[in-house]
């Protein structure tokens, strides 16, 4: 049946994860999540020379990001065509950044793990490291640019988006770095400094999110509709409860107590790992909520006098 729609503010429905293709349509959010965790973990692992982290980053990139993103596409066999419009398309640029990151991170990890004559030459090794870092930064930030360049959805149009996506990527990277100590004690001595970095990043991300919410709620009506949907509407459980409270406030509060009382983090391993799981869940829910909260301005409001 053809329905006549009544429209005012319409939420974007193409990137929601709800679709007729079932699980394949739900693959976008894991792709975006792992597309943040993977470069974040790579950067964290490069800084601390953490080989298991490098390998985990590569695995998350190829399986968590690459495979899920391919499954999401309507015609995955044509993914290579995605490089055709680098001049103007952020999806194209993202694909390019991912390819660069995949190649450089893999080569650097190989050179850091094994003795490979061609790769272990000093200059080559350093070049790969720098190229890996640059491509990881670009890859981590690109979804933010992708959203911020959507003119049609005012809630996404802000330079805070790329900053948020980038900082969340590093935050999630350090969180999974700490979490990996549950399985390997290699590099375990860096727990204190990693937790400190993670704590600062969480505070910065929380501040950035609060700033964005306040700024958006002071702008146009479409932004306010998005903010309302995130804070008192259908997404409030995910955003306020999951992303902000469980994902940021609880870890910040618990770590503040640990730091304030000068407690030994290694005595609170289980708590620390639990907090990192909370934080990662929060990052996922934050991205999910922001994407779901995108609202178009009405096509006709205030234009037509009848």
């Amino acid at each position, binding site marked *: 049946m*053809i329905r*006549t*729609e*009544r*429209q005012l503010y*319409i939420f*974007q429905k*193409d*990137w929601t994860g709800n*679709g*007729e*293709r079932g699980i394949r*349509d739900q693959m976008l959010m894991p792709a975006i999540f792992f597309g943040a965790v993977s470069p974040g973990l790579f950067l964290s692992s490069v800084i601390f020379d953490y080989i298991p982290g490098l390998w985990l980053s590569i695995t998350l990139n190829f399986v968590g990001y690459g495979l899920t993103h391919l499954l*999401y*596409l*309507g*015609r*995955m066999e*044509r*993914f290579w*065509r*995605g*490089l*055709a*419009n680098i001049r*103007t*398309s*952020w*999806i*194209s640029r993202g*694909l390019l950044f991912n390819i660069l990151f995949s190649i450089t991170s893999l080569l650097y990890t190989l050179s850091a793990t094994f003795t490979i004559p061609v790769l272990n030459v000093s200059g080559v090794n350093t070049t790969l490291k720098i190229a890996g870092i640059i491509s990881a930064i670009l890859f981590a930030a690109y979804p933010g640019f*992708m959203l911020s*360049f*959507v*003119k*049609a*959805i005012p809630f996404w149009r802000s330079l805070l988006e790329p900053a948020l996506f980038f900082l969340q990527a590093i935050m999630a990277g350090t969180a999974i770095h700490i979490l990996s100590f549950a399985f390997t004690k290699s590099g375990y001595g860096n727990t204190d400094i990693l937790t400190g970095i993670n704590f600062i990043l969480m505070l910065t991300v929380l501040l950035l999110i609060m700033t964005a919410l306040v700024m958006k709620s002071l702008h146009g009506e479409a932004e306010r509709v998005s903010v309302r949907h995130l804070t008192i509407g259908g997404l409030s459980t995910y955003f306020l409860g999951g992303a902000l409270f469980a994902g940021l406030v609880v870890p910040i509060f618990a770590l503040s107590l640990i730091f304030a009382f000068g407690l030994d983090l290694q005595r609170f391993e289980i708590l620390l790992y639990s907090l990192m799981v909370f934080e990662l869940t929060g990052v996922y829910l934050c991205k999910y909520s922001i994407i779901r909260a*995108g609202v*178009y*301005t009405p*096509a*006709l409001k205030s*234009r*037509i*006098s*009848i």
Partner: protein
Amino acid sequence: MKRYAMVVDLKKCLGCQTCTISCKLFHGLGPDIVRVKVIEQEEGEFPHVERMFIPLRCMHCDDPECLKACPTGATKKRTDGIVIVDQDECMGCRYCAVVCPYQARTFIAVDRRYFPGNGNLWEAKRYTEHQTGTMQKCDFCYKRIDEGISRGLEPGIAPEATPMCVISCIGKALYFGDLNDPESKVSRLIKQRNGFRLKEELGTEPSVYFLPRR
């Protein structure tokens, strides 16, 4: 150089959806796939309330957001201003649908038919022309226009060279023609009746104009 445009007279639109149906029939579009949709808007306060209907489709913008966003280059803009999607190049990322301010694109997720099984003969023949996993949008019936022009017909004047929605509109609310020709019907209507475009503030320069009701 021609630039094809459409004009919608809001005073004449009845909200009958004939444009939607004729488009679906002509292009052989399956369930939930629409290129033209009619939205309803209420204005005013009781007892001075009025309803109006607004047919929406791809606005064939002069500076289309979808063209810039499309990573594969499947979205193309022809020299006559018509924006089309090459289904053989589309990879189905749906970024174009997200960036479109007019929500004019539909993703063909699965091959569905109105009739059970393989559908009726019409569905079996026509639905396979559209690839699942790609985007659909109004293309101003460009194949019809091209064919008409090759026969020496004038789009917007000769029915055989005019989009199906325009010729099927029972309220005669739709007009089609060359925007670059100041003597064309569309140019004259826009000028005479203060035609406006939707979301002009975004700077996409749509090619679909609307004539106010008063």
